[in-house]
């Protein structure tokens, strides 16, 4: 009944009154969003390094691992949430399993790409200096793969922040809860606030990670 223009007059895109009285709600949603993202990215990061190293060393492992993760990655998050509900219910576990799986593809692939990009001359030099296989991996190859791993980390973080909002469908979505609230109550403010905060969070974390990389890995600057 109410057309867009009419609605705009009645319900502004941001109702400052609502916002000023609901700051704790917004902050709680933001906090949950950050936690869900942090768990998904950190867990995948920890798992990706051994998996990536094994995949790099044995092509027989690499192809099926990246293939299986690629299939998982193609499945929409809402479908994976729905598939898990009969087993893990409306819980954080249901939200995290798909997110961790998606991040594993991004991060494992970048570990492999990073390790493959180490120049053969460097490996020869390391061998010549008497490095054993394991020491060469830890002290030469992984540090040189770090820039690629960092690139993967930034991509995984930004992508996770967006997908977390969809977990609102199962009742755990951080800022997605506010988007859903805006939808259900046909009220613009929580929707607009959540969208802006979600974009801001993604940009802030992306820039922070880029800054961290510049400081922590000076050898990646020229790339």
């Amino acid at each position, binding site marked *: 009944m109410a057309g867009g223009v009419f609605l705009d007059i009645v319900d502004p895109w941001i109702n400052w009154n609502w916002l000023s009285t609901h700051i704790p709600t917004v902050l709680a949603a933001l906090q949950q969003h950050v936690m869900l993202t942090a768990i998904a990215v950190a867990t995948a990061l920890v798992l990706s390094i051994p998996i990536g190293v094994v995949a790099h060393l044995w092509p027989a492992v690499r192809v099926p691992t990246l293939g299986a993760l690629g299939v998982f990655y*193609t499945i929409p998050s809402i479908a994976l949430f729905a*598939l898990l*509900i*009969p087993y893990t219910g409306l819980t954080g576990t249901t939200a995290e399993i798909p997110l961790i799986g998606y991040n594993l593809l991004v991060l494992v692939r970048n570990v492999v790409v990073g390790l493959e990009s180490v120049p053969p001359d460097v490996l020869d030099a390391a061998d010549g200096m008497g490095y054993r296989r394991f020491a060469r991996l830890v002290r030469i190859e992984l540090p040189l793969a770090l820039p690629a791993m960092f690139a993967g980390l930034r991509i995984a973080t930004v*992508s996770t922040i*967006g997908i977390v909002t969809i977990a609102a*469908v199962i009742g755990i979505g951080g800022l997605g809860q506010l*988007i859903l609230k805006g939808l259900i109550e046909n009220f613009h403010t929580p929707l607009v606030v959540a969208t802006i905060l979600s974009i801001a969070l993604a940009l802030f974390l992306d820039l922070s990670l880029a800054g961290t990389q510049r400081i922590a890995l000076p050898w990646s600057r020229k790339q």
Partner: protein
Amino acid sequence: MVTETMSLLEQLWQWFADPANRQGSDGIPTRLGEHVQLSVEAIIIGALIALPIGVVLGHYGRFGNLAINLSNAGRAVPSFAVIVLAFQAFGLGGGPIVFALTLLAIPPMVTNAYVALREVDADVRDAARGMGYRELAQVIRIELPLAVPLIMAGVRTSAVQVVATATLAALVAGGGLGRYIVDGLARNDNPRLVAGALLVAGLALATEFSLSALERLISPRGVRLRRHPVYQPLKIV
């Protein structure tokens, strides 16, 4: 645990066998048709807008930062929010949903088309010039065929994302296969929920694999995507 799994499987079997889910306005063919229609419209409109922009920018090598950062920025915008915003701004119906899906489809296609045209070897361009190709002929007959694999990779990425995001249309009272997931959740009906999830997952995988096959089919012989494409578009749904 085992019996629980068994019973869900049996219930699923019954759900797929139930005539109410096989025909009519809430049957699988109707829902699948709605889902595919929303997605195809968005992908075609998106491609008509995005590919010419990407190709022109890539050919002239202009506004490269814009073409590449468009995708990076697009990734930071939650697709769920785009769908709900389009619904609140333009109301119910297929139009607003297709509009939102089109917006999400554009960035990866622009970026990939740009990168694809930039990746054409400068020597090849010079050779084409030397052979007397005019600019338009050079783009159409030399650069585009070489760019096909990467352009198609962009179309495929967009298509998979659009098919995935179209599932969310059900949340704003739209149709499509997402209907089963949203209704299954609302009614606490696990077989419906899981059946919907399987159908959505199947459609996404079918989109990915059929467009990969198309990509190989229409890529000129001898031109194949490099093992590590320069630009790897990413998941947003």
